[in-house]
């Protein structure tokens, strides 16, 4: 095992509901196999699922890039999509730009990004309208124990 740890990329297709959650599921299994603490697995599972769903719901395509080291997990969700005009506002609970169709499917309650923040130990979000969005999060194995 080198210092860079495990690096993996999971492509995610926008609108592909049938396979939504697969990437997050694979990531979860990796963490189980290396014996990460249950609390971390749970938090990563929740956040990565939300990130994957955001790509499926809003973007054309994107990917989850994951770097796992013995003490932390770093996830970057990068997509080509509409972007978020006001990232600060997007972090507020209940704020959503979801279309009626998305809400009809039971998504778009405006809890996605707040939930990702709640589950993770560090978060950064960068977005450019008309280009895409990049959400970065970190989890420390000795990080928070609540937030899920």
């Amino acid at each position, binding site marked *: *095992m080198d210092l860079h740890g*495990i690096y993996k990329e999971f492509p995610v297709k926008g609108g592909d509901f049938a396979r939504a959650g697969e990437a997050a599921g694979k990531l979860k299994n990796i963490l*189980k196999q*290396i*014996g990460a603490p*249950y609390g971390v697995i749970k938090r990563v599972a929740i956040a990565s*699922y939300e990130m994957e769903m955001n790509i499926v719901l809003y973007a054309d395509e994107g990917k989850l890039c994951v770097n796992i080291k013995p003490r932390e997990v770093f996830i970057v969700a990068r997509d080509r999509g509409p972007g978020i005009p006001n990232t600060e506002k997007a972090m507020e609970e209940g704020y959503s730009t979801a279309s009626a169709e998305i809400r009809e499917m039971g998504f778009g309650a405006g809890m996605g990004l707040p939930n990702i923040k709640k589950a993770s130990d560090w978060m950064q979000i960068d977005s450019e309208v008309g280009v895409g969005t990049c959400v970065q999060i970190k989890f420390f194995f000795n990080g928070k124990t609540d937030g*899920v």
Partner: protein
Amino acid sequence: MEYELNKYFHSVRLVEDKCKGCTHCIRTCPTEAIRVRNGKATIIEEKCIDCGECIRTCPNDAKIAFADTLESIKKYSYKIAIPAPSLVGQFSKKYKLEKVLSAFLFLGFDEILEVGFGADLVARAATEYLQSQAIFLSKPVISSACPAVVKLIQVKYPGLAENILPMQSPMEVTAHFIKEDVSRRLGMGKADIGVFFITPCPAKVTVVKQPVGTNRSWVDGAIAVSETVNNIKMNFNRVSESAGVQKASNGGIGWGRRGGEAATVKVPNKLSVDGIHHVSSVLERIEAGGFKGINFIEAQACVGGCVGGVLMVENPFMAKLKVDIVSEQVGEKNEWLIEKAYKENPREYYLLTEKIKPRPIGRLDADMGEAMRKLQEIEALCAELPGIDCGSCGCPTCRAFAEDVVSGMMMRMDCLFDLRDRVRSLAQEISALAEKLPHAMQEKGANQ
């Protein structure tokens, strides 16, 4: 008891002589606990959850469920049968529940109490617990009634162990209740009283021998429903209905099939899930933060619930219909009896005495760095494998094969495709060599 005391007791076992080494079972096993080695299936002890899925799929009847026999009840001076609520589903309409229960007297038992009675008690306790503890619980709360599901969570979804409802099973509550009742009523020592569960599935046999979440079982043995059904039918004409033997309510009897448990646990927003693979997919979602709005999940390993158990004889869908009918016929006439029994005992009576501990099987190594190294090796190997999960190597998937290779249990060449490639390149080398002629025999220009 006549079983070896290994680390884990298992009811599900292999009959070597019958096993042809086909790969049906390795694919359906929800925990990938089976490998075919040396032409025979072998069960990996710590991974098996006794769900019985392999018994269902084996075309050669090589997988069996070990259970106690009717013979074994003779060790006790007072014998009590506690049949699962699903039992009644095994009989056609002419077999009235009251008489089916009474028939156990002809099988050598002295007394009968339906586990449906315990289910009625547990339903009350669970409702009270869920209502009073609501804010402290990890949602959704998952029922503890199906032992195969509890074990599935322990080994494959260990982080969800804290979501399991810490409630004794109806079987345990029924056995506890009747043993103490008989001991008091007849002034007998508890060691002289044998309580036998009439079981629809191997997972129940296993938890009787090796309880989970409770330090001891009140049940002394588990006898397969399939062993009793014919006996009951044969003795049926001699049975006279003993009034009052039937004590469960419609709710408790309903636990014999899917939906019955959820119906009696009085909280809003609950799910009933059946079939071990469906249960797995629901647990996957819960791990990713799903089903937050659901308060309670009744999860059963067998399709249709306990009526679908592998130790049953009737078609599960017919059996469910029969349970539906009987539970409606019984109605609420025994409610007063259950209410009285429920009030006799404190809340702790119904609670598990020990925490259900995670028992993860997925970990590649105790050392995380080493586990990460192995994982990378596995992924690299996986990329080279055909990925069609043919099963010829005896592993359920190419991924599982890669895991076995990295952990040293298999060799790379155990993959038929890999072997074929090597044979092919070897054959090419040989034929190239065969073409090669000694210099003395070469014509000009050839074999340069």
